[in-house]
């Protein structure tokens, strides 16, 4: 059973950028036409004025085929063309070049709750949103009870949604979308909403859909979700298809390449953080050989955090360190050079200073983390405040979690420490 579901050939999408692409006024256009009628005619004869205008290719020469029943993950940085690809595939916007052939009914989910109206009740919105997503009335009638119970909004179904809590609203909206049963489903990062329990529920529903022989294209920043849901993966960068293969392989390649963000360096010290107590010149991640980290780190490998700075005016209250965040922005911990008894603190002297801290092995789980530089005068003044004005680095942890036969993949939870167990009776 290898029915072709999606065939994309040399797809390109060009957007105009710059001031001319902004809203023009009819008045302006008419004035231009009156001033230079010939130019307007010539321009329309040439077909377009694209040539002279600045533009970018949001997608360029992208080709791939997808067989029915496959789930394709699309990964890449912000602005890589992932969303544009979905918009072209779902016919929201037309391509500039190339063709797409889709075999099967297409449903797209670029946003949860598209077309929901605040004045209407939950019941009314189910019908409206269902129709917008392409469901027939008979289909909605049939699934109505399932939608309501999946969304857990039974009691409020005849209440206008403007009185819903944010969570209820999202649950109902996702529930309608989740009951869409097209042969081809295009999904854009909708799982990034709601609390963890809800995300888990959505993910479960998504993998049900993928398991039913439907074809799914799933755009996400969450590598774990892509690896869990998809059996194929493409990586886009600046509109081009960089790699197409198994999620494992493509995700690894992407993470290996995309880590331009492991070093923050201003050797001349001319930054907005400039100060006499500890003027940062470098903040970076290094491997065991103190060379800059340029790919995902294993959980069992040492990762060093290197902080360099210039001191003109020593201050006893100075604390140098870093904060570690999850990719969703949750703070995991702070670590400062003043965490230990005072006699163990590394000396900070006038002139150049290099501090190194090793992240404990077997601490971080598989996933993406963000490190931010922490510089402060204890209880006096922030010099570089995490979450406010601090330089940040990104760290990918991949593999090496444990040699246990049970845990070769990511573990539940944000951390994956090894804590030995012993028998108490021996």
């Amino acid at each position, binding site marked *: 059973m290898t*029915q072709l579901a999606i065939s994309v050939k040399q797809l390109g999408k060009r957007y105009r950028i710059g001031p001319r692409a902004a809203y023009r006024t009819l008045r302006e256009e008419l004035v231009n036409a009156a001033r230079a009628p010939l130019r307007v005619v010539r321009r329309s004869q040439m077909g377009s004025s694209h040539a002279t205008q600045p533009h970018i290719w949001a997608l360029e020469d992208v080709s791939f085929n997808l067989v029915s029943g496959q789930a394709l993950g699309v990964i890449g940085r912000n602005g890589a063309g992932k969303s544009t690809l979905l918009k072209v595939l779902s016919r929201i916007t037309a391509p500039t070049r190339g*063709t797409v052939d*889709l075999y099967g009914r*297409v449903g797209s989910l670029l946003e949860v709750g598209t077309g929901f*109206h605040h004045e209407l009740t939950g019941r009314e919105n189910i019908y409206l949103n269902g129709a*917008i997503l392409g469901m027939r009335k008979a289909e909605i009638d049939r699934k109505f009870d399932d939608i309501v119970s999946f969304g857990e909004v039974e009691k409020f179904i005849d209440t206008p949604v403007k009185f819903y809590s944010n969570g209820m609203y999202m649950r109902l909206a996702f529930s309608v979308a989740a009951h869409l049963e097209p*042969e081809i489903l295009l999904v854009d990062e909708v799982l990034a909403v709601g609390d963890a329990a809800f995300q888990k529920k959505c993910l479960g529903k998504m993998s049900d859909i993928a398991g039913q022989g439907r074809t799914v294209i799933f755009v996400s920043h969450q590598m774990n979700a892509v690896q869990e849901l998809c059996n194929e993966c493409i990586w886009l960068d600046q509109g081009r298809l960089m790699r197409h293969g198994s999620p494992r392989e493509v995700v690894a390649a992407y993470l290996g390449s995309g880590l331009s963000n492991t070093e923050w360096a201003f050797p001349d010290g001319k930054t907005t953080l400039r100060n006499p107590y500890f003027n940062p010149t470098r903040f970076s991640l290094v491997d065991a050989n103190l060379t800059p980290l340029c790919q995902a780190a294993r959980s069992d490998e040492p990762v060093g955090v290197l902080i360099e700075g210039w001191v003109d005016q020593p201050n006893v209250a100075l604390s140098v360190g870093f904060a570690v965040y999850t990719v969703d922005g949750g703070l995991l911990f702070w670590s400062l050079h003043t965490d230990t008894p005072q006699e163990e603190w590394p000396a900070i002297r006038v002139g150049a200073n290099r501090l190194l801290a090793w992240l404990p092995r077997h601490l971080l789980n598989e996933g993406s983390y963000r490190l931010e530089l922490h510089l402060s005068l204890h209880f006096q003044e922030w010099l570089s405040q995490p979450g406010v004005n601090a330089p940040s680095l990104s760290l990918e942890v991949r593999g090496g979690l444990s040699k246990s036969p049970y845990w070769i993949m990511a573990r539940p939870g944000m951390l994956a420490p090894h804590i030995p167990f012993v028998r108490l009776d021996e």
Partner: protein
Amino acid sequence: MAVNSPLPGADEGLTHLVHTHIEPPGRWATPALRDVWQYRELLFYLVWRDIKVRYKQTWLGAAWAVIQPFLTMVVFSVFFGALAGLPSDGLPYPLFTYTALLPWQLFAFALTESSNSLVNNQRLIAKIYFPRLVIPVSAALPGLVDFSIAFVVLLGMMLFYGMPLTLRILILPLLILLTIIAALSLGLWLAALNVKYRDVRYVIPFIVQLGFFLTPIAYSSTLVPERLQPLYALNPMVGVVEGFRWALLGSQAPAGVLLLISAVVALLVLAGGLLYFRHMEDTFADLL
């Protein structure tokens, strides 16, 4: 070119795979009227949404539908009918002007709403595909509810003035359809232009106001010199309004010819609007 192969896992028996082909838009494509038909349920729900939201506070919404034309009628009757003494083809002036106000308000509402419809629904357009034509068409229709309410009042007024209903009333559905077509013919142009040029929004009220004076609402079209009549009827609402008076009040105005010119003009503009809309359709999501 549908590929006929049953899809496993589909829960409604054998489904045949629909083939969708996407390519860069040509310069001028034919209007996707069949697509709109396929999405008729969405059209229905959008109209239903607009009506529902509009009448959420029920009695006030219904009252507005009557208050507006009724007050206008009263003011016109006092100033144009009684004070200025404008001729009303021998009909009671209030009835004469109210009968014209109804189709005009339907037209003005449909035109304004459809012209602003794409901009008002930009989130929808940016996030989901459906034939864009559904939006202006659905925006033009909710005015029919206001019209129906105000029409009941008209029937009451006819009773009051002892105006009998005749079989001529059977032509009304056709006139109402022509009103919607006339509104959409302009509305499609303006809706598409509104996406591209943001000052179109300010032109719309002006067009409506201008149209009001170019339509025989406060006065009779017989005031217009005979040789200018064909030119006058280029405004499709001229034929519609005189048609309403002919059908309901038995006026003697030459509705037939005017109506024909109006209908032809409306259909031509509509055809152009459909083509232009189709031409612009693919860029809406990028421009909004």
